[in-house]
């Protein structure tokens, strides 16, 4: 390999005598230059992300605050929006359709509200993930940072949004006679696991969405189907009473249903363990680990390709 064209055919700047015979790659090696925009190792990537943790946090907070900054009531909407949402669903599913199917009102309303908020958490993280790269292409093409910062930051934003919603959840739970007790603490590991799961999901869809932005158009249909199959407004067990038990089990093992049921189980006194599928914690941890780690690796594998037009 004796390639002498390292300066192009028109090179007029005096070539350095010793390096004249070297090919670009050899020259780069000699001076210890590295390939620009190459993908770091997985460990290096995690370190880079850790280095950017303040950016990830600041970006998610900024997005959250910017959302309502033009409204007169400002940040009050963080709580008012989920509250109004809960009211609408109660009106339709609780009063008009009577989807509770024999569940007492004191159980059904908190059941419904928790289902909606917990599912929305996953749904919104997923949607934000799909759009993470296409809507921030300007940022990706202007600055260096591990691209996973974007989907992670967006699911962080959804987590903060959920924490506001949890204020409504607590109000509703107490209003229907469920008072704080030790089991409420189970909400913390449940939501932590769900957050890991959501982030993994957002990472997977961020990679797919960066290649095929059309996915954003399909997602609403997918998430709606998922919502109806996960028992957000009704109890899967009661609905499928006369079907073989494994169907209900399979539906209840889906991650959205798992995290919803665990939150309900922790907060609603009369929503006992009989409503949970077998091995529920195993599945809660399993989904988080598999999708969280898998999604991260899947996203990292295409790191050098994000930002291509």
């Amino acid at each position, binding site marked *: 390999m004796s390639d002498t*064209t*390292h*300066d*192009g055919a*028109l*090179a*007029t*700047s005096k070539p*350095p005598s*010793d*390096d004249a015979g070297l*090919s*670009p*790659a050899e*020259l*780069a090696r*000699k*001076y*210890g*230059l*590295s*390939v*620009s*925009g*190459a993908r770091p190792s997985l460990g290096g990537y995690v370190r880079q992300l850790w*280095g*950017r943790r*303040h*950016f990830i946090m*600041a*970006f998610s907070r*900024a*997005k959250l*605050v*910017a959302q309502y*900054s*033009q409204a007169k009531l400002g940040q009050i909407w963080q709580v008012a929006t989920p509250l109004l949402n809960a009211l609408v669903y109660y009106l339709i599913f609780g009063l008009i359709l009577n989807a509770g199917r024999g569940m007492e009102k004191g159980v059904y309303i908190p059941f419904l509200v928790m289902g909606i908020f917990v599912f929305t958490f996953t749904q919104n993280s997923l949607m934000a993930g799909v759009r993470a790269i296409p809507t*921030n292409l*300007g*940022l*990706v*093409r*202007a*600055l*260096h*940072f591990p691209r996973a910062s974007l989907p992670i930051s967006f699911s962080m934003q959804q987590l903060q949004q959920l924490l506001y919603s949890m204020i409504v959840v607590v109000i509703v739970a107490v209003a229907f006679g469920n008072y704080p007790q030790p089991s409420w603490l189970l909400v913390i590991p449940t939501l932590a696991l769900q957050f890991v799961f959501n982030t993994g999901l957002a990472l997977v869809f961020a990679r797919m969405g960066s290649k095929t*932005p059309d996915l954003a158009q399909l997602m609403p249909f997918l998430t709606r189907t998922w919502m109806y199959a996960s028992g957000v407004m009704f109890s899967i067990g009661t609905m499928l009473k006369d079907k073989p038990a494994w169907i209900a089990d399979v539906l209840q093992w889906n991650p959205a249903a798992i995290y919803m049921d665990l939150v309900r189980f922790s907060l609603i006194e009369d929503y006992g363990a009989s409503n949970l599928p077998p091995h529920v914690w195993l599945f809660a941890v399993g989904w988080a680990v598999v999708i969280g780690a898998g999604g991260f690796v899947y996203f990292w594998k295409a790191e*050098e*390709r994000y*930002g*291509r*037009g």
Partner: protein
Amino acid sequence: MAEITQGRVPTVIADEVHIVYRVNTGSSGKGSATAALSKILRRGKGDAPGVRRVHAVRGVSFTAYRGEAIGLIGSNGSGKSTLLRAIAGLLPCESGKVYTDGQPSLLGVNAALMNDLTGERNVVLGGLAMGMTREQIKERYQDIVDFSGINEKGDFISLPMRTYSSGMAARLRFSIAAAKDHDVLMIDEALATGDRKFQVRSEARIRELREKAGTVFLVSHNNNSIRDTCSRVLWLEKGELLMDGPTEEVVSAYEKATSH
């Protein structure tokens, strides 16, 4: 390291760089949804339907050395900015490679800032986006605000950026972007924005950054600023490197070519 024995140390090496944009054109120009559908069904060779390839940079090779200030000239759409982004590792190359010493950075933070946030928060967000630590930002915060001159007409820094005039916003953006020192610095035209007073200040700041940086790339349509700043110029046309040489030689050739 061999650097001591060598006079000229390469900092950026571009080796036969090709960059292709793939643009989703929806239903590829003419025709309705049905036309788009039939296109999908027909499945031509090569790229997916509704995608057009734009070959923006075609086989550019050069080596930049430490201490050089390199200007990039060429008509609009000749691939200058695209090439800069590829050097920075922000745009993946279709083929060929770019080798760099350290992490080159593009001067600019526009995309990270949010109009609905206060200037204050944007300073922090922009700094973090550029990879500064919270301590570094805290340290330079006052300098950034003072440099931008945003607070000269009252306490504007605590108002959302959408309330700023376009000149004020541009000044704040520049001040944030210029707050960090870089090894390989790339500047993409029209940076000296704002009123005359601010232009003078920002030109001085660019000069300061240039002195600290190992290698500087400058994209500009202003031949005078290229003459002032650069020792070497690359002339790009239609994505190809037309000329590479000392500033005066290349700029006069460029002026001759564009004058008629």
